[in-house]
């Protein structure tokens, strides 16, 4: 473990009576990074988060926070803090008292100014007297963030931070969360099942599947150089033509053979779906083999039944054996 590592899960395993949730998982989270723990539901990512927070104890393995194994410690004995999916704001306390809760537990001085600074940070100074029930979803999330950040944790855990928000609010909050993380410089470990969320926000992603780590890397690494077919498929659609994988945005359509040295297949169009900014065009290469191409609106004009040439650049190919 280097000085640049805040958190390291080392060979962590956790079983529940019904299933093995986490199977020999190792994860490293660097200091100051926004790390996303990504995977489908039931992949063990939330159990990992709960073991870091202290709500679950691993059966075996270590949870190292700044080099110290915190696995046996109670939640209140470790300097990590969680922003819960439901936010879990205390309903009987106003925003100010919610944010002050942790400071009071620590018996800290100058609670007033610390809470005010935290509320300023998340633009909630005007709502300090409000009860959680009187706030919008976005405001509740910011209150929950302030409540955790005011404690200056070594690591902030976020459990599906955007899932309880309105879809049209999520885009903005993604940017805001990332900007906030940069400003406070606290390491964020975020659990999400939404690959777009992970790609757009994270510095690095750990992708999990069925209790194991599938791949670790930057969003670009994971999207452009998936190590497994699961990774390739989870981060976006892939067309498999033999052993070659092509993403829909890399698959191009032409009436005639493009003659540019690219790989080409003849195909017949079966469907064309308008998505606003582009079309998803489905085509049949051979009997029963469908592929999907994402076509810019300006280049559309294809109809079901048309014979076309599909082409792609070899640089865009994904080579992953089955």
């Amino acid at each position: 473990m280097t000085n640049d590592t805040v958190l390291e899960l080392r060979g962590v395993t956790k079983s529940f009576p019904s299933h093995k949730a986490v199977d020999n998982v190792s994860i490293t989270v660097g200091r100051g990074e926004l790390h996303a723990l990504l995977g489908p539901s039931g992949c063990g990512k939330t159990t990992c988060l709960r073991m870091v927070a202290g709500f679950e104890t691993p059966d075996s393995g270590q949870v190292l926070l700044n080099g110290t194994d915190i696995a046996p410690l109670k939640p209140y004995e470790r300097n990590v803090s969680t922003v819960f999916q439901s936010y879990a704001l205390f309903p009987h306390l106003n925003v100010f008292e919610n944010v002050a809760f942790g400071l009071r537990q620590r018996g800290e001085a100058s609670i007033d100014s610390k809470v005010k600074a935290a509320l300023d940070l998340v633009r909630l100074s005007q709502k300090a007297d409000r009860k959680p029930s009187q706030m919008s979803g976005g405001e509740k999330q910011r209150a929950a963030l302030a409540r955790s950040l005011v404690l200056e944790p070594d690591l902030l855990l976020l459990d599906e931070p955007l899932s309880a928000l309105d879809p049209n609010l999520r885009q903005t909050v993604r940017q805001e969360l990332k900007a906030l993380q940069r400003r406070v410089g606290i390491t964020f470990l975020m659990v999400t099942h939404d690959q777009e969320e992970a790609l757009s926000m994270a510095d690095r992603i750990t992708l999990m599947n069925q209790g194991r780590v599938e791949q670790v890397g930057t969003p670009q690494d994971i999207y452009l150089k998936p190590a497994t077919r699961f990774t390739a498929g989870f981060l976006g659609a892939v067309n498999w033509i033999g052993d070659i994988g092509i993403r829909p945005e890399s698959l191009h359509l032409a009436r005639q053979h493009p003659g540019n040295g690219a790989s080409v297949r003849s195909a017949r169009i079966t469907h064309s779906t308008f998505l606003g900014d582009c079309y998803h065009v489905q085509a049949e290469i051979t009997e029963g083999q469908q592929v999907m191409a994402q076509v810019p609106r300006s280049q559309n004009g294809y109809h079901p039944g048309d014979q076309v040439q599909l082409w792609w650049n070899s640089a865009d190919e994904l080579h992953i054996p089955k």
Partner: protein
Amino acid sequence: MRLLSLYAVLAYAFLHLPLLVLSVFSFNQSRFTQWEGFSTRWYAQAFADPALREATLNSLLIGGAATVLATVIGTLCAYALWKRKSPPISSTLYLSLMTPEIVTGVALLAFYQWLFHFLNLQLGMMTVIFAHVSFCLAYVVIVVIARLRTMDGTLEEAALDLGANEFEAFYLVTLPQLAPAIVSAALLAFTISFDDFVITSMVAGVDSETLPMVMYATARRGVSPILNAVSTIIVVGLGVLILASERLQTKS
């Protein structure tokens, strides 16, 4: 709609008319069920009756003690059941509600008689209070656990996360959420304890005759308008408690 309203009025009349008649005749000049003019003489006599006064005091004492004990024990029971999520144990609670009072009474009496072999005790205040705690307990657990089940379980985790230990999390976060339900459960327990006749009469001793027991004994000796007055006071008093309990439950 009009028919429906009429139906509702009739149903309420069926429920409440006897109580109305009772309270009207409690203010009757005559001791018979024939109106002869307004009077508060039965109330005056009721307050002057030493047996009724002692029994009322006993009932309040027993009700108070049983309420405090049943509420504390029951709230902790509900909390434990909620934490451990053990439905088999929860469902046996309803057994306690379904058991006929006379059976509970016989069972408690047998239990006490067996216990008296080992302990130098006899039927009295303590045995009545213990009996009342035992039949109030299930009501408290059911009211409190209903509230707990609507509570976000991550609230306690959030408290732990913010540095509170398990006791602080319960005291600072869970208890305030439960407060209205606990008060409501206590009011309910008190009314149930105050009401009880069957079980109490089986486990009471000479020093622990409750108001319902004395009223029953009086009624056996013949009609007394004093009972009308006492009953009216009880109905109004418990009615206020029940309404308060209901209001707190809907509020929580």
